[in-house]
């Protein structure tokens, strides 16, 4: 039985809610049950932003994520605010720009240059969210690649398909090519 709760965090404007929607939609294409939600409203203004996705092979009742299986953090503030909510043995994917890595040794932490890759490799900072989805895919395989790519194309502005598929691939590669490097458990002591 599959049941995964994911939390994507960062700041307003980083497209994390869209990322959550895409992930949820991909799971839906896979025939899975899914609930997506987000924190909302003025306190999100300029401050922390949060999207949540529950993906499950059974019916989802309680729609909110409390303890999560995987968390993505794109800012220090978000990371600090939520890292305690990761379940033991859970996964934290954090952007490399975040200076302080949380002190938890019961989870796997991936420190990944997501924003940097968006800026430098692709030249579009706004695709960080899609790169992040690529990393999540590569680590968890929680949805099928076909569904993920379809979902991305369905939700992004027309004409940017190619860029976004490339972003996804950058995400896959960030994990794939660097498994043995600084990502993974050991990194948390960097």
């Amino acid at each position: 039985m599959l049941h995964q709760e994911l939390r994507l965090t960062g700041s307003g404007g980083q497209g994390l809610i869209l990322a959550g929607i895409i992930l949820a939609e991909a799971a839906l294409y896979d025939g899975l049950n899914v609930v997506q939600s987000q924190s909302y409203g003025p306190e999100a203004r300029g401050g922390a932003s949060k999207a949540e996705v529950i993906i499950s092979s059974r019916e989802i009742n309680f729609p909110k994520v409390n303890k999560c299986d995987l968390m993505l953090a794109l800012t220090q503030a978000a990371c600090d605010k939520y890292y305690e909510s990761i379940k033991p043995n859970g996964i934290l994917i954090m952007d490399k720009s975040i200076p302080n890595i949380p002190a938890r040794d019961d989870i796997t932490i991936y420190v990944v240059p997501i924003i940097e890759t968006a800026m430098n490799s692709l030249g579009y900072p706004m695709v960080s969210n899609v790169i992040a989805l690529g990393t999540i895919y590569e680590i968890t395989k929680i949805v099928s690649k076909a569904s993920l790519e379809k979902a991305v194309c369905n939700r992004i502005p027309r004409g940017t398909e190619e860029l976004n598929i490339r972003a996804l691939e950058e995400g896959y590669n960030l994990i794939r090519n660097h498994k043995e490097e600084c990502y993974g458990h050991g990194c948390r002591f960097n």
Partner: protein
Amino acid sequence: MIERNVKLMQGNEACVEAAITAGMKFYAGYPITPSTEIAEISAERLPKVGGKFIQMEDEIASISAVIGASIAGAKSMTATSGPGFSLKQEGIGYAVITETPCVIVNVQRGGPSTGMPTAPGQGDIMQARWGTHGDHSIIALYPWSVKEIYYTTIKAFNLAEKYRTPVILLLDEVIGHMRESIELPNEGEVEIYNRKKPTCLTEEYKPYKVKEGDIVPEMAGFGEGYRFHVTGLVHGETGFPTNNGKIAEELIRRLIGKIEDNKDDIVETDEYLLDDADIAIVAFGSTARAAKSAVDTLREEGIKAGLFRPITIWPLADKPLVELAKKVSRIVVVEMNLGQYYLEVDRVAGKYTKVDRFGRVNGDLITPQEIVDFVKEV
């Protein structure tokens, strides 16, 4: 990868899509968190189906325009949240006494007053019933999932038309903003009810006369040749105001009766594991989702719990509640308030069984564990 006509949709979005399926041709509103997407999506969608969207200057103007449009013949809706719902109360009473079909969505947030605008709440349960002055009855529905928002919105329009009455659709911030999968029906797959129009000679039309066998008077639209008068004053069959006490009493009793006497048609409830249950949790909307999880947990722990979920909040599901009360040794009403629906459950069920309440008003959805703890502790 399964290919179905399935979409990922936000609760507020499902509400608009359903409204359009139900025949909505007019929306007037004023933005307020967490209902605003309903306005925004209506603004986008309506002109594409030949309907009209207007952002009015405030909530009072919105409900007024909605009633006006409905009198003129268009199925109409507005959406708001707490503060706006309070402002619409006078208008809702006008829709009640003039028997004007319309749907008023209240996506509940934390209150009272401005309260916690971005947090969910269930504090408007009693207000939905009693918010407007004077004796009256009301229909209020409260779904718990995106899919159910879709079907319940259609039901809201259908009941509004069938009973010629405003219907309150209660949502909350959680179900309004969350996204879930929903399989949209194809055209013709859902039943749509349209108001019954008169066919008599125009001279013979009495806008407030109920025909033998009908529940409500036939309703002409403006510009269709039946010229009639609509007033919020007590009125007779011709629609003209009167001070006649007998007519007044008849009118008010008929308005209340058409709802209270047709519960068999209007009231919808849902049950989960109640057949052998010893403890029944009563909950609705997003809280019922937590309650369902709680039931599972309690069952795992060997406690025979079940869930009773009113989808129709008003009129009260008294018959099912009494039946329930006779079956279980305890009822726990769980709400994101400190006891509103509880009062009515206690009234009708409290004569047969113990009725407790569990509520929270901190702006967070009640969790399954909290419910489990409460059930086990008390």
